Structures are given as C-alpha cells and as structure tokens.
C-alpha cells in the first residue's frame, strides 16, 4: 500500500511538471521510444524492490521452516 502511494505521488509529480503541447501532427512511435528511457528508472527501482521483498520473505520463510523442524524434534 505504502509503495503504491509513493509511486503514485512520484508519478503524479512527474505528470504535473510535464507540460502538455498542442500539436496537430503526432508521430507516437518516437515519444514511446523516448519514454522508455524515463521508464527504465522506475523499472529498475521496481525490480530492486521485488528482489528486496523476495529476500525478506525468504528470510522469514527460512526462520519459519527452522522453527517448524525444531518443534518436530
């Protein structure tokens, strides 16, 4: 939840500071390609977060498994 709020706030700020142009002719392909340079940063943060989350989860899973095996003994 907190992650979503932070992301939404960041994206909202970015949306607010990007001015809207008024062009009649648009080549959408170029904007999409350039956008991916910006998006790469978000993706890297996202991928790092997922990796971090997995590490934390596997740490707790290991502890849980250890506790479980100790109880069995």
């Amino acid at each position, binding site marked *: 939840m907190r992650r979503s709020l932070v992301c939404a706030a960041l*994206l*909202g700020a970015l949306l607010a500071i990007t001015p809207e142009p008024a062009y009649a002719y648009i080549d959408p392909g170029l904007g999409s390609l350039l956008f991916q340079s910006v998006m790469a940063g978000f993706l890297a943060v*996202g991928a790092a977060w997922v990796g971090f989350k997995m590490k934390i989860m596997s740490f707790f899973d290991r502890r849980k498994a250890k506790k479980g095996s100790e109880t069995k003994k």
Partner: protein
Amino acid sequence: MLHRDPASFRDPDGFVFSLDGTLYRSVTPAARVLLVDSKAFFSAAIERGLLLPFELDADVPECVATDIRSVIKPEIIDLITYPHEWCFEQFKHAALNTLDVNILALEHGLTLKDASAFNTQMHSGVTVFIDHTSFEPTDGKLPWRPYSQFCRHFLNPLVMGAYRDIHVGSFFRMNLDGVPQQTANDFLPWRARFVPSIAMHMFLHNRFIRRSSEFEAKNARAKEVSPRGDQLDLLRQLRAFVQSLKPAKAVSTWASYYSQTNYDDTTFAKKKELVAASFEGRRLGTIWDVGANDGTFSRLVAGSADRTLALDLDHNAVNACYVENRERGDRSIHALVYDVCNPTPALGFENAERSTLEQRSKADVVLALAVIHHLSITNNIPLDQSADYFASRGKELLIEFVGPGDSQVKRLLAQKNTSYDWYTEQNFQAAFSKRFNLESRQEIPGTDRYFYRLVRLK
C-alpha cells in the same frame, strides 16, 4: 492456384499464401537464416505451446512464382478470429501470450518486431503466436520497439475493460491499430491514475506521445535512443500487471439469462433433450449457435461437430462461455462476440484485410434458440428477412419459435407501442417455408415455444 493472403503485406520478411488448399509463408533468405540459427528458440516456444508449430523448408511447389526462395508450412488454424470478436479473457490470454513469447525469445537473443493482436490466435484450445517472421536479434536492452503497439493493441483495451463495462474488442472495428492512448485515457475514471502501472504506461506515456513532434523538431536523430535498462524488466512488469486485470463488474442482461427465464427445470430439461436428439449420431463440420449466451447448448452439441461457434452479442455472456470452455478443456468451441443485427464487417485495406465471419466459416447446422422474438420484436426484422439471413448461413436450421403467448415475448411487447400482430407462428411458418423444408415441429411442453428442424431448399 496461388492465392496471396490480402492481410499479409506489412512484413517485408515474408507473406502468407495458399496453394491448392495448403497454407504457406514465404520467407526471405535473411528471415530463413534467423529461423535456422534460432532453431532452439522456435522448438522451445512450440514445445511450451506458445507458438504455432510449423515445418521449416517445406517443398516449394514448382508452379509458385520464382521470387519465392523458401517457404515454411504452418499448421492450419481451425478458425481465424479477430480482436473485435474476442471477449476480455481471450484478449488477456492473447496479451500474455505475446509477452511470454517475447520473454522466451529474449533468453535466445531475440525480441519481437511488433506486438499486433492479430498475431495471436486460438489453436487447439490455447492461444498461440502465429507470426514466425516477427522476431529479430536484440541485445536485450530498452527500448522495446513494439511497446507503443502493445499498449494500443492490448494494454489500453484491457485496462478500459477492467474499469468500464464495455466490449474491449469493439474499438478494433473502428481502428485496426487498436485504441489510441488519448482515447483510452479519456475512458478511464480519475481514480485510475493512482494505479502506478496505469499512471506510467498510459498517462505519463501519453505525455511523451503528445510531445513526439517536439522531440523530432529538436533532434532529427532522436530515434536512436540510447540503450538503458532491460527489456526483460519491462516485459515482466507488463506481464504481472496484465495478469492482475479483471473485467469490470457488470449487471449483464444476458450473462445470467438462464437463471431468469420462464423455464422450470422440467421444461429446460425437455428443451435440452430435443436439441440433443437432433444431433444424435451425427458427425458435422461446423455448428453455429446463434445467441449462444453462456454456451450451455453449444457444449451440449459440440461433440457432434469438428467446431462449434458459440456466438452472442453480449460480451459478458461470451466471456463466461470462454472461461468455462477453458476450464473444461473444451477445444472445439469458439466463443465469439457476434451480433446478428451488426455482424463482423470486412475491414482494412480494400476491405480485404479482415473478412466477415461468414467468409471464414460456413455452417452445416445453425442453432437459433430463443432468438427469433428478439430479431422480430426488439429489432423489427421482418420474418422473411430473418429466414433469408438463416438460409444464407447454413444448410440446416434448428430454430426455437417463441410464440406471442410466451411471457418473455409479452415483456418485449409491453415496451412497444406499435402492433406486432404479424408475429405469429403461422406467419413464421409461411416466411421460413419459402427458404426451407419443414422437417419437424415439436412443442416444448408447458410453454408457448416450438422447436423446428428446417432444411434449406436447393
């Protein structure tokens, strides 16, 4: 005689043609080298059920034009369908298939050149990618060139369908290149911008699309975007987001139809019995179930045919039918959005790129249960014209005539202020006997409904 597929002209690396009923795809020498060098990828993709199986270096018939050097022979797809006929879940599976194929391709140093919804089809009950020349070598870095097209063809319609009760595919009737970013964004409620993936792929992305001409004016070489980030991260993120999408909750008129009809269990069982008996011991090619709703009767008769088209105008009912077919592993039923009063038109360049459903499929038997009163009363279609419609779709018609005494007909008539005294069984018989032989008529006990078996006049 060689017949070039009129829809196959966009890819310079090959085109599809048929010869004496066999389908081929011609490939340029460069495209053939890629197919040979990347054999491991193509084998893995076929093995995982992501790609349509094909035969490399099929024999080129000698009569074929000399400029065709090599051909591949893809497996024949049972029925070609289009995004404008798909329900939400079929769209979603097509999007996931496109991403999965690309993710696998990246493991082998390849990526997609395009991400068109028309490159995926249902084959033996699963969604497969059909364009074998859509791949090119890559270093795996961003930009992912099909990104914009993926958004127009998949992401935008799916997100729209997740927030609004609309048939996501209908936009392809207006524009074969999918839903433009601005149009998609305008459809969404304000709250949608707070979903990070939507804010990024749709709203922020749109800012850049709208500034494209500015970028071009500032820097003529701007297209050479410096590589940054991995395509795999983008594809995985898109996959997780697409996977999470669900169709908007809707109160559909038709999706819960069978729980609201005036049939009780006994009469409904009797109707099922009558329909099943009409197909007993028969082996047919194609059945069209017009007004199939959630596919209850399509499933009942599907065992008697190679393929059954479960057609309905309500996208929610078609979605329910599609989901149940997948769960049951029913491979021969095609659940498609189809409106008798506004059927799939011929679209694209020369109106030949995408054909009508009638051009792609001919029915041996048309099943039309509880449909005629909607054509006649809701849509004011004269009985003669309804008879013409059904006669041009199939050789045999199994139709349920819903009499004027039926409670559903009374409900329809209550909303009309004109007389429908012409809507009688006598007039129905007179109109349909001009085009059909009346083979049998059976009353569905306890109702003002009659089950007819009609065979088209020669």
